[in-house]
């Protein structure tokens, strides 16, 4: 080590200077964190309300008869259910019972699986016979123009909208795989797989119900 480098190292180790750096950086973080907390406090009620509305709309999309269907509040999740979902590679975050004219008509699951840019939160509806009645996306951060095609239910190469092809699938079809019994969207394989994983997890949990 040359003398000059040593001298530089010595200067930057000056305790007073280090203290200044620490205090400034800590102060900045503190101010930013405080402002973030403040903004979060102001915006949280609005954002929660919007998310609730989005959840209700998503629930309506995944049942067979949206107009006749009613939904319970989120049911309590048992350890078996969360274990079944994570066994299939996704996280179960909520479960709603669906009733049609007061008769039980299946369940709707909110599952979270990982896409290409982050988590994909989706709603999967199944009827009493564990057959998928619909899949819809609640929130995602997939790449606009690529993964967003899957999220937007655009048609695959075969012409069927990518999310609609899950309708009618049941545990009898075995594990669903992209390229096997599910068509992905080219260029967006990871996003397509993410959704497929979520549906598999929902079916795994549905098999435990009733």
């Amino acid at each position: 080590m040359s003398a000059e480098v040593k001298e530089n190292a010595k200067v930057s180790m000056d305790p007073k200077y280090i203290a200044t750096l620490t205090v400034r950086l800590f102060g900045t973080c503190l101010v930013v964190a405080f402002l973030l907390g403040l903004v979060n406090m102001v915006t949280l009620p609005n954002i929660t309300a919007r998310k609730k509305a989005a959840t209700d709309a998503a629930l309506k999309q995944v049942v067979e008869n949206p107009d006749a269907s009613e939904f319970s509040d989120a049911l309590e999740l048992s350890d078996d259910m969360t274990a079944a979902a994570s066994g299939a590679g996704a996280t179960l975050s909520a479960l709603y019972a669906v009733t049609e004219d007061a008769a039980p008509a299946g369940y709707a699951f909110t599952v979270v699986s990982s896409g290409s840019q982050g988590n994909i939160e989706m709603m999967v509806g199944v009827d009493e016979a564990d057959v998928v009645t619909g899949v819809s996306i609640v929130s995602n951060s997939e790449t606009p123009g690529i993964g967003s095609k899957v999220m937007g239910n655009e048609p695959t190469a075969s012409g069927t909208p990518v999310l609609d092809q899950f309708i009618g699938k049941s545990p009898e079809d075995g594990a669903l795989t992209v390229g096997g019994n599910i068509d992905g969207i080219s260029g967006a394989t990871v996003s397509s797989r993410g959704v497929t994983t979520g549906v598999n997890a929902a079916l795994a949990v549905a098999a435990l119900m009733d």
Partner: protein
Amino acid sequence: MDFKSQFKEGLITNNPVLVQLLGLCSTMAITTSFFNGLGMGIAVTIILTLSNIIIAAIRNIVPDKIRIAMFIVVIAGFVTMVDLLLQAFVPALSESLGVFIPLIVVNCIILGRAESFSYKNGVAASAVDGICQGIGYTVVLLVMCVIREFLGAGTFGGGILGPGGIFDGGALGAGKGITILPEQYPMKLLTLPVGGFIVLAVLIAAMQWALERSKAKAEKEAAEV
């Protein structure tokens, strides 16, 4: 401060994408339809301008050795606040631009301009720099969107025009674009990431050629005088 020269710098001679080569990741990822380019361009321009102002305002209390760390904290915090506020109070805008905003935190144009311009210049000049660089970025995005959308999907104005677009009673970002090329002709390759690389490379090469040419011309004129 000289607005005209700053504008020329942002748009041409020091264009953030084609000359500084900043923000390439977002440039290639989102330039598949006209609306995406416009949305990302507007979001970056606004946030770049505001973050430039903030950085310029606090530049005297930021120690040299930890400036990058402080820039990151300030920019990430600021972008998150904008994101939350949009989600809560302007849901329509958040629906259409929301996906771009988290991407901006990692867009190196913001950090690049903080480091190379607003850390060394006043608030007003930094604001102008943000606007000019933002416009330069937006223009490149739009050019790429138009090329990739036309050759890759055969449409123009995706997300805004065409069936389901805003003039067809649809929401922002929903339109399919006006079809120009019949369906069997477009090269799908161009809408995929590899197409982004190709189009960007061609644009950068064209830009460098044009800059070299105008430089050579200026030198020749100077020599003649």
